């Protein structure tokens, strides 16, 4: 009952099965490949959405209006404190504020000509780190800052932030939902295909049992086949993803360029994703075959 002898028998048996009856294997690999390809694209898509959200997040801006003539030291302390919490801080002098307002008002700017030389108060403009891009957190921050000495008011675009938060939630949940559906569909379709592939060979299972094979003995070669199918399917999916990366991603990226989203291609490729996909493929193939052959054994 040498383990090596048995392992050899199982591999021989699996390879013979594939050689002499290639069709169900080809179909299983194809289905696994398509399923994993779709899954891989889905994952890349959800990463792209994640990036999109992060880049939209950079547009959250908080303006901290300062008392005109507040001591420079106080302002520096405040800036330092905010920087320490991860915010980007930029001082906008009254002059810069007027210039900007002029720009923003466009043709209506003539109206500003009548203003005093420094009519707008100075302000700090904050770049908000990801952890703070949340209406509740920002509201708390605003309250806290308002109590500081040099601060007259905090303007954090409540409506915009809430809107952005809602958009992020919606996209995230929508993406998650879509991905979950895709995952379920993959699992169901793959297991259905493997069931059918082994159903096409149910005679074999029956005969092996009649000749005195234990369930484990019957199952082993099918598991090896499932493993090989899963890995071949993953390889097929990788080829497909590489093709997408090469032919389809560049034009899509140009379209998305304005969003400053880092290439979703990065998510598609790389050693880690490759190994992950191979692993998922192997697992799917193995598990699917296990279930299918168990079913055939019970019959």
């Amino acid at each position, binding site marked *: 009952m040498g383990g090596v002898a048995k392992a050899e028998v199982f591999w021989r048996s699996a390879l*013979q099965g594939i050689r*002499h009856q290639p069709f169900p294997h080809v179909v299983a690999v194809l289905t696994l490949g398509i399923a994993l390809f779709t899954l891989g694209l889905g994952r890349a898509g959800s990463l792209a959405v994640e990036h999109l959200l992060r880049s939209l997040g950079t547009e959250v801006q908080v303006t901290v209006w300062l008392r005109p003539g507040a001591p420079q030291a106080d302002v520096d302390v405040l800036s330092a404190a905010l920087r320490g919490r991860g915010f980007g801080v930029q001082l906008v002098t009254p002059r810069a504020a007027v210039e900007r307002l002029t720009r923003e008002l466009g043709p209506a700017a003539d109206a500003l000509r009548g203003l005093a030389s420094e009519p707008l108060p100075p302000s700090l403009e904050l770049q908000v780190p990801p952890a703070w891009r949340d209406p509740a957190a920002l509201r708390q921050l605003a309250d806290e800052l308002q109590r500081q000495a040099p601060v007259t008011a905090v303007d954090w675009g409540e409506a915009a932030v809430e809107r952005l938060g809602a958009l992020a939630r919606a996209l995230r949940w929508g993406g998650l939902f879509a991905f979950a559906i895709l995952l379920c569909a993959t699992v169901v379709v793959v297991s259905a295909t493997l069931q059918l592939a082994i159903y096409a060979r149910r005679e074999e299972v029956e005969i092996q049992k009649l000749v005195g094979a234990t369930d484990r003995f019957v199952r082993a070669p099918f598991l090896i086949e499932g493993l090989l199918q899963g890995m071949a399917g993953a390889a097929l999916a990788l080829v497909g993803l590489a093709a997408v990366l090469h032919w389809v991603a560049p034009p899509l990226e140009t379209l998305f360029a304005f969003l400053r989203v880092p290439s979703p291609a990065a998510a598609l490729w790389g050693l880690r994703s490759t190994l992950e996909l191979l692993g998922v493929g192997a697992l799917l193939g193995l598990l699917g075959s296990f279930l299918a052959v168990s079913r055939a054994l019970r019959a």
Partner: protein
Amino acid sequence: MIQMFHVTKSYPGDPPVLTDVNLTVDKGEFVFLTGPSGAGKTTLLRLVFCDEKPTRGQILVGGRNVARIRAASVPYLRRNIGVVFQDFKLLPHRTVLDNVAFTLDVLGTPRSESRERVLRMLKLVGLQHKAESLPLKLSGGEQQRVVIARALVNDPTILLADEPTGNLDPGLTVEILDLLCEVNVRGTTVVVATHDATLLERYQKRVIRLERGRVVSDTAQSEAVRRTG
């Protein structure tokens, strides 16, 4: 070796296939099982190697009650029983060699050893030149001989042969029957289901005759009757 007590087998919706069969086959015996088509010969053999459970009655095989055996023990029972199936049951996508070797693979016999034994067995049934063929490319008689080789290759303690010569010419039939006799002489209990009256004549072994699921004659008993009578 094989004992049946009041065995009845019926499939739902049909009249019983076997009715109250009582039977004892001793270790080392050679028994012909005969009877018209549909009499229940195959069913009787299937009960012995646990492919079906009896509806009623007890069956002892090598001392084990197969009517009550656990599913997990069935493979181990079957390893001691060589079966020549009436419908062959060859793995269609394995070579002849691998088909015959399968019974040895199951036992964990190393390939080098099993290969040798398989080739020797194939030679005995006259098929050494077809070792690498797939079963679908063989003639009916060749397939039948592969099944016989598979049943014999692991020296089973019991051999059940269901119509083993239905596709063989008279010359081969005698060769195969002689082979079975030889195996029997070496200690294997042999049960051969057959229609071939000339075989019954020629070999003068114990004959159990089934008709409509009942044992209608058994030469062992009649001899016993004759001896006591």
